[in-house]
């Protein structure tokens, strides 16, 4: 498998892929991804559930600007992709790319499972990133 898009964003467990969020030691607030740098000391890492529910979504119909986007595609062969927020009950609502053939079948409330997507980049070859797909 290719290298991860970044360290400490997700982890593979027996029951599926889990995102790694941070819980504030001060007030319990959760955020994804787990804060890095100086703020990391203020948070404890928490693995999110492998399945949640779709909270909202859209389809990215034009190629995002580079930088910051590093997809290996160009304006001519870009394929629109879906993305959205998934609510992990009692934890946090996290944003990610969505793996789906027909985005018109997406619906708020749909159960979604965390997956790993091989994302082709123009700078680092394929990288492994997390994504959501209907459970």
């Amino acid at each position, binding site marked *: 498998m290719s290298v991860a*898009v*970044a360290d400490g*964003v997700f982890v593979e467990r027996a029951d599926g892929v889990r995102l790694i*969020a941070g819980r504030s030691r001060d007030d319990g*607030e*959760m*955020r*994804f*991804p787990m804060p*890095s740098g100086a703020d990391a000391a203020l948070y404890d890492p928490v693995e999110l559930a492998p399945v949640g529910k779709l*909270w*909202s*979504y*859209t*389809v*990215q*119909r*034009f190629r*995002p*600007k580079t*930088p*910051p*986007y*590093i*997809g290996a595609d160009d304006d001519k062969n870009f394929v629109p*992709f879906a*993305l*959205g*927020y998934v*609510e*992990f*009950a*009692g*934890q*946090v*609502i*996290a*944003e*990610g*790319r969505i793996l789906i053939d027909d*985005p018109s079948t997406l619906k*708020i409330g749909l159960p979604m499972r965390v997956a790993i997507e091989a*994302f082709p*980049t123009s700078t680092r070859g394929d990288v492994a*990133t997390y994504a959501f797909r209907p459970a």
Partner: protein
Amino acid sequence: MTDVHIIGAGIHPFGRHPAMTGLDQGVFAVREALADAGVVWADMQFAFGGSAAAGSADAALPRLGLTGVQFINISNGCATGGSSMLSGYWAIKSGEFDIGVVLGFDKHPRGAFNADPEASGLPRWYGETGMMLTTQFFAMKIRRYMELYGISETSLGRVAVKAYENGVRAPHAWRREPVDLDTVLNSQMLSDPLTKFMFCSPAEGGVAMVLASDKKMRELGLTGPKVRGAAVRTRPRGSFEVFAPSLDVERGVAPTVLASEAAYAMAGVGPQDIDVAQIQDTESGAEIMHMAENGFCADGEQEAWLADGVTSLGGRLPVNTDGGCLACGEPIGASGLRQVYENVQQLRGRAEARQVPDAKLAYSQVYGAPGLSAVAILEA
């Protein structure tokens, strides 16, 4: 304490002006505002101004006059213009100054705004994998709102149709051709459910305002709308903002709700008292959601309001009478002041073909990254 009045207002038309810099357009607007009030730069005791992408506002000084005036550059995201306005308001309200200028201008390249993850405190991969676009945020916020409150895609289209109709009547607007509902709904889909004609575009323009104390205004023999309330508020916990890799499960209100409540409280009025409103319409969905966030209607009522033309010219509460961001485009540093400019024109009875009859109380609200909102309430 003294009241604060707007005694002069100037604008450089919004749009694209290849031969002019952003600063050129800001200087133009200041000269217009000074001429409108019949005062000169040397009379100004302070200035607050800013742009997001067109340089320091105080670069205008060599062209306006090196009078030694204290000039403070403002940088506050999409609320830069609203923040300049509020700073000028405080300067006079405090009793420290009697008269001064607030200005905003900008000039952006075409297409979506470039985003830098690290400058926003976000991990690089968030932008690298294509999730750092303001357009996506607007699409996902209205998608959820539509589902929760029964707003149709037709209503999204109606907001845009109204904006372009109003833009035809506003000399400072950029897009001055009407666009019909079918064209709006069937134009290129950019980020579902929002089409090309439902989004505003980055643009250019400049706006300036001369503010004065009650006493100074009388001394000069001038009149002008009174600032009844002005407030800027930032995102509270649980709000849904641009560039958010995660959201709290416990949902909270938007910063606009806080800014709106604060401004109404200062003014001692409520949403039912407002005659005309300019509210942030980065895209059609934003206008719909901001109608409720500013207290004008309940969540979901927008569907009937738009079908009945309540917010059109001639309706009970005309909204975005100059076509808003949709028809004017969005030069970030100038956009909030453009709303105030339009309200000044309405309250002075100078809005010509788009005049709201007998407008006495006018409301403006600008929202933007990274999650802040500025509201101003003016009285004729």
